């Protein structure tokens, strides 16, 4: 589970490269490239959250805030001031990292339920700010006119080009996170998860690692928000409400937050559920999400990523003694 070889990453890369071609060939899934753009955006957030929640064992129910901060910093600086989008994306990341540092340092001293509620309250406060600071954010109606992205004069003006951009970021974040997990920092995070006192007795600077991983997850969420803003050319606060933080929780629980693969799979499946497969339920999808979340937490505590292990456990119970 911990060792992630090169082969799966190569397979992911190849899948990313050929996906739009396949989608173009089959009319029934022609719109899947568009949905995959959102899946990639969510993947960026869940990869960071997997490190925070799955590996380090810290709970956040407020990452919609960082997603929104990234989106709004990009939106305001590009649409209102005409600044360079890539620079704005970077500013968004700096702002999110700063706020994550400010909120994370005192929050992460808290444990369990307290931390969950603190992040939840933080998320709602930021959401209220998006709604109230109308002169900047456009209030509940949102703001339009956010420009698209271009690289060296080459406009990313089609869904497929944007798909490659987003998934390029996902691949980079994934490889970086794999390296983090397999480094000393990853071992420190897992030690914190098992027991904070034991970890600190072994010389792990617990609070530093916790804040670092919190900031890292905020940075990825902010990047995702900027990418979202430039793709939609429009942002409004409803995208970044409490329910989005809960949706992130569903993605992680569904895919399995204890592995990075689980985070990617969860985000992917959830995106297709919400954009494509649950249309029939319309706004009652919230009920379906609740049911999914409950079933997963009761029957699949490791998420879908834990299913192969469970099957292996059933089949090879006499032989394996892991």
């Amino acid at each position, binding site marked *: 589970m911990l060792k992630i070889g090169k082969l799966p990453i190569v397979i992911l890369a190849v899948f990313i490269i050929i996906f739009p071609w396949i989608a173009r060939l089959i009319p029934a899934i022609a719109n899947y490239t568009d949905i995959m753009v959102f899946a990639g955006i969510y993947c960026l957030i869940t990869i960071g959250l997997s490190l925070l929640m799955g590996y380090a064992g810290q709970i956040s129910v407020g990452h919609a805030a960082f997603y929104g901060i990234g989106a709004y910093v990009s939106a305001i600086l590009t649409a209102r001031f005409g600044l360079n989008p890539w620079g704005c994306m970077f500013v968004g990341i700096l702002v999110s990292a700063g706020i994550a540092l400010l909120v994370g340092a005192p929050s992460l001293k808290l444990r369990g339920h307290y931390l969950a509620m*603190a992040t939840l309250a933080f998320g709602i406060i930021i959401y209220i700010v998006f709604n109230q600071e109308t002169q900047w954010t456009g209030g509940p109606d949102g703001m339009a006119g956010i420009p698209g992205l271009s690289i060296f004069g080459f406009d990313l003006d089609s869904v497929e080009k944007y798909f490659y951009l987003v998934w390029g970021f996902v691949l980079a974040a994934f490889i970086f996170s794999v390296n983090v997990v397999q480094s000393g920092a990853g071992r420190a995070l897992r030690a914190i998860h098992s027991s904070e006192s034991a970890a600190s007795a072994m010389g792990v600077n617990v609070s530093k690692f916790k804040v670092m991983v919190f900031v890292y997850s905020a940075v990825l969420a902010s990047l995702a928000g900027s990418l979202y803003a430039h793709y939609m050319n429009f942002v409004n606060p409803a995208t970044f409400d409490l329910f989005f933080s809960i949706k992130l929780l569903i993605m992680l629980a569904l895919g399995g937050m204890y592995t990075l693969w689980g985070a990617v799979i969860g985000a992917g499946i959830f995106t297709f559920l919400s954009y494509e497969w649950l249309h029939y339920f319309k706004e009652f999808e919230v009920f379906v999400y609740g049911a999914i979340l409950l079933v997963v*937490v009761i029957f699949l*505590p490791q998420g879908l990523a834990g299913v192969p292990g469970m099957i292996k456990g059933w089949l090879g119970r006499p032989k394996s003694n892991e």
Partner: protein
Amino acid sequence: METITLGGQLFQYLITGITVGSIYAMVAVGFNIIYNVTEIINFAQGEFVMLGGLMMVFCHAGMGLPLIMAFPLTVILVTLVGMLMDRLAIRPIRQPTVLSLIIATIAVSILLKGAAMFIWGKDPFDLPAFSGRNPIMFFGAVIQPQYFWVIGFLILIVIALTFFFDRTILGKAMSACADNPDAASLVGINVKRMIMLAFALSAAIGAVAGIVVTPISLMEYDRGAMLAVKGFGAAVLGGLGSFPGAVMGGLILGAIESLGAGLISSGYKDAFALIVLLVVLFFKPSGIFGDIEISRIKRF
């Protein structure tokens, strides 16, 4: 009539704040009951309030029952929901960790919200005030008669719970589960039943809160989450697990929210309580009346 003095205005905010704060206090008491027995924070606590209000609308306006009969029926129905929640969502979890319990209660919370949207739709509902809507003028403040009902029910709940936990065998058995579940089961207390009773009790209190507040602020399907966070804020402010603390925390939070909305910014009304929650969590997570030693020995 235009002579509204600043003093009168402040008094008005304070009265409104204490009324709203009484609701937060009831939610906080509900949190504490479950927390004391199981050390679970029930993120669906606010949904009980929402269900209380909407179920009352169904019993009163839908079934045509008079208020006095619809009230107990509603409380019973919501209590059943609370018991079902324990039986179907909390007890089946095989590896109870903080994270899995948080996810389970959040799952129940959005399930209930979805069900409420399905049954009642998205519109807010009103209920008739228990003793009319003729406001009472008092030192320049306008007081709805319903305010007295809200505050009265808070007092009633606190007295009843104090009696229950201090004077009855059942209440003492529940407290024993909180102190040490293993030791409690050794002396013959059925811990599982006590946990279900805790969910039943806090659902019942949530229902009462929902019923009494609906004539003042209406009720709709998506009010639960905000009530839960503010109720938690009240519980933490007063020290998680403490009943007098929950009441004080709720009243203080309500007053701060009302004064903040009136004097500073009404747009940020909901943010004040949350900022107070964050400040308390950051600087004194054991709360004003809480004991830091007690909060250290808790499992979660």
